[in-house]
């Protein structure tokens, strides 16, 4: 079996998930200059809602795709509601406050979501019912499943749609204007508060979708799963250049690839001292390297035009 090709495939799938989550960090940062640390927990809620709905409908006799579609819609709806309320209740009153205030608030909301989830769903791992039989395909010494292909293609389609939306739609133009200068955007007739709400809506919907993918892929959910996933996606956003939408996509994919490839070879490289369970160190190694070598990220904006 070709380890390189295999890890490449795994990395693209993992990267798709990171990219979707990273978009939520980057869009909110772009428009508010805020690192929404609670975003990873939105993904967790999306994942657990998906699990709950699937478990409830697993015995209903509905076809698997229909169950998954219902679960995904439920997850997206719940996450959108959470994301919009979070902005409205917690961040909006702090819009003109010193930067530290919304940051600490974000950490508070993150904990609030985690412990609420622990109360609602318990602290144990929740299993995903086996709905679809996975079919394997082989390519040049490596193999991938239909599910992997599905996750990758869906993520690519969603991201292409997002880029097109931001570039051409009226709301997309308003998002870009608000991001560049909220006061002047208001003078143009843009209701910037609605645009900010909408940004949270988009980020949360993408996060929910990532949550659905995570439970499909790993078959498990847990109230604390949003923490590590969130940190990784945040790293991906920083890698791509935080605030930059295509950057988050690129950063997510790259981070997924780095992590997969590195964990595929770490055993060989360290003579078996470190196993692939040390994969998490790579993301943070990347974060530190980016912050030291190129803090604005791969596609980051020059600082001058953010003045």
């Amino acid at each position: 079996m070709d380890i390189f090709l295999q890890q490449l495939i795994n990395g693209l799938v993992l990267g798709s998930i990171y990219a979707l989550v990273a978009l939520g960090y980057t869009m909110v940062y772009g428009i508010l200059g805020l690192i929404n640390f609670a975003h990873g927990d939105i993904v967790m809620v999306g994942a657990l809602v998906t699990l709950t709905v699937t478990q409830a409908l697993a015995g209903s006799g509905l076809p698997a795709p229909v169950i998954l579609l219902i679960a995904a819609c439920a997850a997206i709806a719940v996450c959108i509601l959470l994301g919009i309320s979070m902005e409205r209740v917690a961040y909006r009153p702090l819009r003109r406050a010193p930067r530290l205030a919304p940051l600490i608030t974000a950490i508070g909301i993150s904990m609030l979501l985690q412990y609420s989830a622990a109360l609602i769903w318990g602290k144990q791992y929740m299993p995903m019912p086996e709905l679809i039989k996975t079919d394997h395909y082989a390519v040049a010494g490596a193999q991938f499943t239909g599910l992997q292909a599905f996750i990758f293609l869906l993520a690519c389609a969603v991201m292409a749609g997002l880029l097109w939306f931001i570039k051409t739609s009226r709301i997309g133009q308003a998002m870009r204007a608000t991001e560049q200068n909220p006061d002047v955007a208001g003078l143009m007739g843009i209701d910037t508060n609605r645009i900010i709400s909408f940004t949270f809506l988009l980020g949360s919907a993408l996060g929910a979708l990532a949550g659905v993918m995570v439970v499909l892929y790993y078959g498990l959910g847990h109230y604390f799963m949003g923490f590590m996933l969130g940190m990784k996606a945040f790293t991906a956003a920083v890698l791509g250049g935080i605030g930059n939408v295509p950057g988050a996509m690129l950063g997510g994919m790259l981070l997924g690839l780095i992590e997969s490839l590195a964990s595929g070879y770490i055993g060989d490289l360290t003579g078996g001292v470190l196993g692939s369970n040390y994969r998490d160190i790579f993301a943070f190694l990347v974060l530190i390297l980016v912050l030291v070598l190129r803090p604005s990220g791969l596609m980051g904006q020059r600082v001058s035009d953010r003045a």
Partner: protein
Amino acid sequence: MLEVRGLKVAYGGINAVKGIDLDVKRGELVTLIGANGAGKTSTLKALTGLHKPISGHIYYNNNEITAQPPFRLVRQGIALVPEGRGVFARLTVEENIAMGAYSRVDREQIAADQDRVYALFPRLAERRRQLAGTLSGGEQQMLAIGRALMSRPQLLLLDEPSMGLAPLMVHKIFETIRAIAAEGVTLLLVEQNARLALEVCHRGYVMESGTITLADSATALLSNPQVRQAYLGE
């Protein structure tokens, strides 16, 4: 058209505008002059809803508009060309101009107005697809004015449109301001270049550390010894 009564603006503990009265009648050109830090920009920010005043009332077409958000005021016909131009640096010239018409839905009229802006500023037409951040200062000012016109304002507020521009460009901008006024747009012009402003406008207000110290016709202000000494450099 615009009536301001007892307007006070503050930032934290700093009082920037300390209770001013100001009127602009339909079709008038009015200028507000004053030294750095007098409170001119703060006044315009309050008028356009960018900064909530701590007290006072603003009436527009006999309706109170105090502390309404900017996006509502644009829809009622108030536009501001902000201090420092405020172009969207990472949008193209074309996209900036389109943003100016964001509050409108009449597509054909928007296209026609866009052509008029390009006719007014042929330089912008040549640079349609260029990022606004790469334009020269004068071109950015043209863009800011053209963009403001795209909302079809009845009342246009301009904050130091001549700031940082070479004399030739200043001349061009003031010519444009005359042309805009000739089309029936009411103007409130904030300027450091007091002489030019008073030559173009009907009336003027002089602002000093947050209060209005003089209000008169432009010709009277131009011959006022105090004004001549303090603002016309004589």
